[in-house]
């Protein structure tokens, strides 16, 4: 109905955005009736989300017409932002930003570079940016989950860790179970994505490719390729980040600095 009224795609988009916003605000009003106050947070999030995505759309428009190096810079900027966001999950652990930056750079960077070199990811900007951003975003989520889980595991097992230290163990030896638990927990969503692929959800990339006229079977296979690459990038990020963060919960004198009640702030 709307597409008959608004022929300009940008005007149509703005009207659709306004309708979707009204729907979201309706939910906020419904919550308010139940004395659940989401007004301020939701309003800020809606405005922020809209501005961010429009800016990204505009930047993409420029990038698609620009040289390859511009895309590389854009991906590096995404990694930087991802590290900053993911590091918030590890508040109280010194150097969490640098650990996240290294983890995400290594995990997503290695997969993007190697897969582009092998031709699995098309080196065209129109392919590199969306696929690269998907890998970085998922690496960021996994990194955040891993650091958050590692911190809570260490705090929950502070006594056990200090018992190891008191027996003369090397600090990184005392947190081996916490590193394992953090990596395993952070990869659960990625493994579930692989398991449920095509049954529970048809991801946006595949839907987009089909809408753009790609053969549905190829679109399906390529979607699997992307999800497998996401798993690889996330797994590498999680392993690198947790291995790097483990020594940062100890002081130079090998004392556990992340103990319950001392660094519990998020």
């Amino acid at each position, binding site marked *: 109905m709307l597409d008959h009224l608004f022929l300009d795609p940008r005007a149509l988009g703005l009207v659709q955005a306004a309708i979707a916003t009204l729907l979201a605000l309706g939910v906020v009003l419904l919550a308010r009736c139940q004395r659940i106050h989401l007004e301020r947070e939701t309003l800020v999030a809606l405005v922020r989300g809209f501005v961010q995505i429009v800016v990204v759309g505009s930047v993409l428009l420029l990038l698609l017409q620009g040289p390859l190096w511009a895309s590389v810079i854009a991906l590096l900027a995404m990694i930087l932002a991802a590290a900053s966001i993911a590091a918030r999950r590890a508040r109280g652990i010194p150097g969490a930003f640098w650990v996240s930056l290294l983890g995400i750079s290594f995990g997503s960077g290695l997969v993007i570079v190697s897969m582009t070199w092998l031709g699995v990811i098309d080196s065209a900007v129109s392919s590199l940016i969306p696929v690269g951003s998907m890998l970085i975003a998922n690496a960021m989520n996994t990194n955040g989950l891993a650091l958050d889980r590692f911190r809570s595991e260490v705090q929950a097992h502070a006594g056990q860790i200090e018992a*190891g230290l008191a027996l*003369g163990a*090397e600090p990184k030896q005392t947190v081996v179970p916490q590193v394992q638990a953090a990596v395993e927990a952070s990869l659960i969503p990625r493994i579930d994505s692989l398991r449920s692929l095509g049954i529970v959800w048809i991801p946006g990339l595949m839907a987009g490719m089909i809408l753009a006229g790609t053969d549905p079977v190829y679109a399906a296979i390529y979607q699997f390729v992307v999800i497998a690459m996401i798993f690889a990038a996330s797994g590498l990020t999680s392993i690198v980040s947790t291995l790097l963060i483990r020594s940062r919960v100890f002081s130079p004198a090998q*004392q556990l600095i992340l103990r319950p009640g001392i660094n519990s702030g998020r």
Partner: protein
Amino acid sequence: MPTEGIPPHSKVILQTDHLSHVSGDAHLVDDISIQVEEGDIVAIVGPSGAGKSSFLRLLNRLDEPTAGTVWLEGIDYRMIPPQELRRRVGMLMQSPYLFSGTVADNIHFGPRQRGEELPPETVEQLLERVGMAGYADRDVSNLSGGEAQRVSLARTLANSPEVLLLDEPTSALDEATQRGVEDLICSIIHQQDLTCLIVTHDTQQAARMATHVMALEAGRLVKYGPVEEIHIA
């Protein structure tokens, strides 16, 4: 005895020198200077929040002093690598905190950190000493609280410590088990002539076990001396 700038003495194994630990606004350990001679058994007593466990943690360097230091056999303990220090100053915690696996895995834990492999006979001897002979292959998840604390003691002893720190070692146990573990600790300390510092809230236990008593209040040392000279309420 409390000390004021006393140089490390040959018989003195452990000396704290104006030892303090401040966390935020709280003075958990406030300017404590004592010296402990070889073979002394020092009971650290005081009300909850007096800083007993905080003091013990400083001795094992699980926490860093904010002022002062500890001398171990005349050497500033900050000069000793933490892993070596913790091997020499063993600590038994309130809860056993056994690592998953078998009893033997736990006994091997400390020596393996230094690349040492205890022969099975030594493991068995250690277990015998804590009344757990034949338990080497048992999974630790099947042990009772008292058994777990005995294994934890054997695990600490496997490191052959020169000083043993005990942080309320029987408080997590039921009354019936408490006395058995206490007697066991006493007999091991005396057999091996170990220097020992025991945190306890039980003054009767302090009187039964210790040669010296150290009373703390709000992080400060209020009394220190031989058990027969110190009145502990």
